[in-house]
C-alpha cells in the first residue's frame, strides 16, 4: 500500500467516524457537539452516558444509514465510536 493509498484510507475512515458521531448526536438527541466526541470515548457509563435502550436506536440508525446489521453478537461494537466504525467498515467491505 503506497502513501497515497494509505492517506486516502485514513481520510475515508476519519470521514466515517465523523458521520457516525453526527448520526449518534442526531438520532439520540445528544446535547453535545459531534466534534467533541472522541474516537475512543466509551459510549456507555461515563463517556457519552448512553443507556441500554439507546443501543437499539443505534442499531436502527446504523441499519438505515449504512445498511449494516448489528446483532446480539456485535454488542462489543457499541463500546466506542472506533469500535462501531470498525464493525461498519468490516461489514461494508464484506458486502463488496
Amino acid at each position, binding site marked *: 500500500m503506497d502513501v497515497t493509498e494509505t492517506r486516502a484510507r485514513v481520510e475515508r475512515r476519519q470521514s466515517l467516524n465523523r458521520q457516525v458521531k453526527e448520526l449518534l448526536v442526531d438520532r439520540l438527541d445528544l446535547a453535545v457537539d459531534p466534534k467533541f466526541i472522541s474516537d475512543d470515548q466509551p459510549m456507555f457509563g461515563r463517556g457519552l452516558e448512553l443507556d441500554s435502550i439507546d*443501543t*437499539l*436506536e443505534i442499531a*436502527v440508525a446504523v*441499519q438505515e444509514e449504512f445498511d449494516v446489521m*448489528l446483532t446480539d453478537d456485535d454488542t462489543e461494537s457499541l463500546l466506542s465510536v472506533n469500535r462501531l466504525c470498525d464493525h461498519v467498515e468490516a461489514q461494508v467491505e464484506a458486502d463488496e
Partner: protein
Amino acid sequence: MSRLSVAFEADEIARYLPHRYPFLLLDRVVDVEPGERAVAIKNISGSDPVFAGHFPDRKIYPGVLLVECVAQAAAIVYGTEAERQATSNGGSGDPATRVGYLAEIRQAKFLRPVTPGDQLVIEVLSGQRLGPMISVTGSITVGAERVLTVRLAVTTRTPEQDVKE
C-alpha cells in the same frame, strides 16, 4: 412468514394480552404475521369511562392511549410468534406471559384528535431487534386520515426471566 388465516375477536385477544378492563384496548385483530406485523381495530365509544374526565365538555380520546393501542398490537405480534415457537418446541405456554415492557416512545405525532365514533385501524411493523428489545413502527388511521405515527421500543419476556424473577 405465513399469515394467520383467522383474525382474533376480543375474547381471543385476551388470550395474548395480560391486560384487562379498562385497559385491554384492542377490539379485534384483523391481520397477523407472527413476529412481523399486525393490523388491529378499536372502536371509540362515547361511553368509554375515560371520556368522563378527558374532557367533561369536549370528548377527546387521550393520545397516550393511542400509543398504548400500538403497544398492545405489538404485543400481539410477539405473542403469536412466541406461541408459534413454543408449539414447534413441543410446549404450550401462555403467550400473555411473554409480554414485556414498553421501553421507549420516539417521534410520536398526534396528527388529529380522536373522538367518539371514530374507528381506529392500528398497524404495527416489527423492526430491528437487539437483546430483548425490539423496535416497532406504528400508525393509526381513521378512514383515510392518519391520526398517529410513532416508533416504540418494546421488550419481550423470555421463559428464563420467569425463572429468575
